[in-house]
């Protein structure tokens, strides 16, 4: 009985997490006639919906916007966070605690409270419906998580090794590049993944601060998607689009499972 329990637990977890995904996949493979047959699995699987989705300008431009905006936000956020986290982990200066508290407060901020004023400000300064108009809010809301993750990570790095390398005849640049960068890279990378997930996932700013294909991101576009024709149900097409944008997430999770777990838990609990 104990053995069944040991197998049942993990199996239940995997089933619980995968059923909604399989359902989405199956829905995306259903043809127009079978979309409301009430079955879980598709009777006659077809890739037609994927063709529809990739021929829809709303989706392809949203995909482009999402990838571009998320990547830019990730690179900028991780760069700024690395500077701040290095200072917090390595240097002694007044205001250090305060900096961490500000980051914490911002992580708890209800983003929707800012949407009205940002909408008003962005329209005035010309950032409404542009890439920077989304990159900037993504930056400020991903910085807290990046800073904690990186600060926790940098505290664990044996910085003395840099000096040791210099004693052994390495130049400061070599010591930094060959010793410190490899040690710090996993942490920076973890922060980048978490930041990318946030930007990729955002919906509130996406629908409020954009209005056209110029900057509308995937989550926002999905909510406004109407399908190939106005008279056709967009369900299967939305499912196909949803599967497409889930592929990168699954790929990242498969490749970097261990780092994501470390990143999510390092800043959160440490005895």
């Amino acid at each position: 009985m104990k053995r069944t329990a040991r197998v049942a637990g993990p199996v239940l977890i995997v089933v619980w997490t995968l059923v909604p995904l399989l359902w989405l996949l199956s829905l995306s493979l259903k043809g127009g006639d079978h979309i409301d047959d009430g079955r879980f699995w598709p009777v006659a699987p077809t890739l037609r919906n994927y063709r529809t989705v990739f021929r829809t300008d709303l989706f392809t431009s949203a995909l482009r916007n999402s990838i571009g905006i998320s990547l830019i936000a990730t690179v900028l956020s991780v760069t700024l966070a690395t500077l701040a986290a290095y200072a917090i982990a390595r240097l002694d200066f007044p205001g250090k605690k305060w900096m961490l508290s500000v980051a914490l407060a911002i992580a708890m901020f209800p983003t929707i409270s800012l949407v009205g004023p940002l909408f008003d400000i962005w329209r005035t300064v010309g950032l409404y419906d542009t890439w920077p108009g989304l990159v900037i809010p993504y930056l400020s809301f991903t910085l807290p998580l990046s800073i904690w993750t990186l600060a926790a990570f940098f505290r664990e790095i044996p910085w003395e090794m840099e000096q040791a390398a210099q004693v052994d005849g390495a130049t400061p640049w070599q010591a930094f590049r060959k010793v410190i960068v490899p040690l710090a890279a996993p942490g920076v990378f973890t922060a980048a993944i978490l930041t990318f997930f946030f930007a990729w996932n955002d919906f509130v700013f996406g629908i409020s601060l954009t209005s056209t294909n110029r900057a509308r991101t995937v989550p926002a576009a999905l909510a406004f998607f109407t399908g190939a024709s106005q008279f056709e149900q967009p369900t299967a097409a939305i499912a196909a689009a949803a599967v497409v944008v889930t592929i990168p997430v699954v790929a990242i999770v498969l490749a970097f499972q261990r780092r994501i777990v470390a990143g999510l838990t390092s800043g959160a609990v440490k005895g």
Partner: protein
Amino acid sequence: MGPARRGGERQWAERRLGWMLCAPALAVMVGVTAYPLVQAVWLSLYSYRITDPAGRRFVGLRNYGVVLTDHLWWSDVATTVLITVITVAVELVIGFAFASVMHRIVFGRRVVRTAVLVPYGIITVVAAFAWRYAFALDTGFVDHAFGLGHFAWFGQRTSALFVIILAEIWKTTPFMSLLLLAGLAQVPGELLEAAEVDGATKAQRLFRVTLPNMKAAIMVALLFRTLDAYRIFDTVFVTTQGAAGTETVSFLAYRQTITRTALGLGSAVSVLLFVSVVLIAVVFVKGFGVDLARARGER
């Protein structure tokens, strides 16, 4: 040059470097939140619709009076609190079960951890669509699979809220379970062994040893998830658009500012939302003594 003076200079240089390195991040974080927040407070004192800029006029606190005496505000608050309490409570139980399984697992550790991260990483809107279509009258399989005939899940409050809460729990339990897993890892093994030797039952070991020793992790997980659940927006937008009595506070703020473009009234709702989030945080930190320094890994 005496070592003391050199030390002073060094210290000063270190401080300056510290501030310089933190300044860009701080500027972006505060610039995008503080200024718009002040703007929101300012706008909330006006009667102002974007479609009628000329009609903008100062009304003082009247917008707050309008919101707080409106029955819609209070029913939205009740809905939001209901969703938050049920979601977080169920997640704590399921998340703890997941964490225990992951803590003890020997085979398939990688597979389970990867599976658990998928809901965490997936776009909330995508997850909400999956659940909406699963329960929908036309495309759904749930009614079919459970022999419910043609039950309209989104037609009434209770069942619509059930689907919304289920979607939220599915999406965010992984985050909870990973935080709890980190907490479980800190429970000293010797304590559990000692308790077992002394003849403590399984339940006693759980409630007397394991849970008290991971209190910090539990409280931090609860705080983060409560604040997050209280801001629920995406799932409601996709599943019901706030119909059938499922509107939440965030959705009301969005509807007033963006859909109705009533920036004055909408800002009042936004400010009230912000205040309630601060209140929740204060209750957790002061009332339950959540140690945030510990949460940041400083101690």
